[in-house]
């Protein structure tokens, strides 16, 4: 439990630092993306703002959890519950298979209209497959 509390405190500290440095990162991104097409710039800024909002939300949530022993215990149980872990594992596996199949279908469909999109999707599938093989090899050695 103490280790879990320490872990949450560290997470909160990292999130707070990210939130506090938001303005600096914003101006840095603005400067770095100077001359970049509007769409890409908007996308980068959108992702950054989204990350900031998520970081503020999680930092507040962690502060609430850390201020109440009861809520902290509840969260500890929820996070360490083996059924939840099994559900997450199954969800990730099923979702990745479905995503892969949909990406393959989209790649084939895009081939009729936009070869570049089709190739991009195929490259994404290939990268996903390589990552899966590498991660599997890692866990094969680890366990």
């Amino acid at each position, binding site marked *: 439990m103490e280790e879990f509390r320490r872990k949450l405190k560290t997470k909160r500290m990292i999130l707070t630092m990210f939130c506090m440095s938001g303005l600096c990162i914003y101006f840095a991104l603005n400067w770095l993306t100077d001359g970049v097409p509007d769409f890409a710039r908007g996308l980068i800024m959108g992702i950054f703002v989204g990350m900031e909002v998520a970081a503020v939300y999680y930092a507040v949530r962690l502060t609430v959890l850390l201020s109440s022993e009861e809520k902290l215990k509840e969260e*500890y*149980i*929820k996070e*360490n*519950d*083996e*059924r*939840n872990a*099994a559900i997450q594992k199954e969800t990730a596996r099923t979702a990745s298979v479905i995503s892969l199949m949909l990406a393959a279908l989209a790649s084939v469909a895009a081939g009729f209209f936009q070869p570049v999109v089709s190739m991009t999707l195929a490259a994404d599938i290939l990268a996903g497959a390589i990552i899966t093989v590498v991660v599997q090899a890692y866990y094969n050695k680890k366990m």
Partner: protein
Amino acid sequence: MKNKIQELRKSRRVTQQELADALSVTRQTIISLENGKYNASLTLAHKAAQFFGTTIEELFIFEGDENI
């Protein structure tokens, strides 16, 4: 794999929430264990057996391929 968790829990007048708290799992996990929808890990099986003062073999009924 079947188990006697519900039977033992009821005979000892323990609620699902109390058992969940004792085993450090959610109440939903206890419900799933009792319904046979989820099989406990060795650690959870050990904890449950300890809680009821019994053995894993007494608490969990292994069938068919689950035995040698």
